[in-house]
């Protein structure tokens, strides 16, 4: 798997976080994992089709999710309800849409499927048959990660 896939997503995270949340994220060290597990409190999965095929899983803590929605709404959020998870899903949808635009500049034409939000720790959904890359991202309101597992369609 090539670094440019994850870079397209990282660049999209930077742009969307700055634009929507006024936050500057910072990337940490990329690691290789054997499979993808939705092991965080708030997970959002996106499917990719086209020149690249596979899935991308975003994992957030409850606190960070509530803080993100608080920044957007200007209101204190207490629980991971439908409002909060839907807002989070839409933010990931926007990030992924931007990532697809970035990928097209690299010569890959892709599409994304609507986000699937999975709330609750240890809802293990192992979906990768291949290895995945995990990129941890640090922000002033917490840390989250992007797991990506895609292959090139010949």
């Amino acid at each position: 798997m090539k670094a440019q896939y994850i870079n397209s997503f990282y660049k999209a995270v930077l742009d969307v976080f700055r634009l929507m949340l006024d936050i500057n994220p910072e990337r940490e060290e990329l690691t290789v994992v054997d499979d993808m597990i939705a092991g965080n409190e708030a997970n959002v999965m996106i499917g990719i089709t086209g020149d690249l095929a596979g899935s991308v899983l975003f994992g957030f803590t409850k606190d960070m999710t509530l803080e993100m929605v608080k920044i957007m709404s200007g209101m204190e959020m207490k629980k991971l309800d439908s409002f909060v998870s839907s807002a989070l899903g839409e933010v990931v949808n926007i990030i992924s849409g931007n990532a697809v635009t970035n990928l097209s500049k690299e010569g890959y034409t892709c599409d994304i499927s609507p986000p699937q939000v999975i709330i609750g720790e240890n809802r293990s959904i192992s979906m990768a048959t291949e290895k995945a890359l995990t990129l941890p991202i640090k922000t002033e309101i917490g840390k989250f990660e992007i797991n990506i597992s895609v292959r090139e369609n010949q």
Partner: protein
Amino acid sequence: MMWKEKYKIGVELIDGQHRELFRRVSDFVKTVQSEDKWDEKLSKVKETLEFMKAYVITHFDDEEAYQKEIGYPGYERHRQIHQRFKDEVQKYAEKFQEESYSEETVQEFGGKLMAWLINHVAGEDQKIGDFQNRGGSV
């Protein structure tokens, strides 16, 4: 949901409509997130939804007319983004009818609407202002 000065594109009509949209969506979020019983807030929810449905169309039409007027090159792309959003709103409107305005679906709609609006106004709409500020050249 806070209106920020950085969202302004420098066109009075559009900025005024954006501000109104933010205010209405913000009220809507406050209502759906309040601790009151769902039955009690339902009339306010329905009222806001009706207003939004009409206002979003007026605003999109005005914004698209303005883009045409200044010869904005991203017009067609922008019009498609608006259309996709209108389709999405329509789908929710039908779901609300089918489910008699279930709290779950209205909350889901609220979250999506808020995030979509912030991104659209802070991102895509800014390009219209940038184009105009450059004297209308690509």
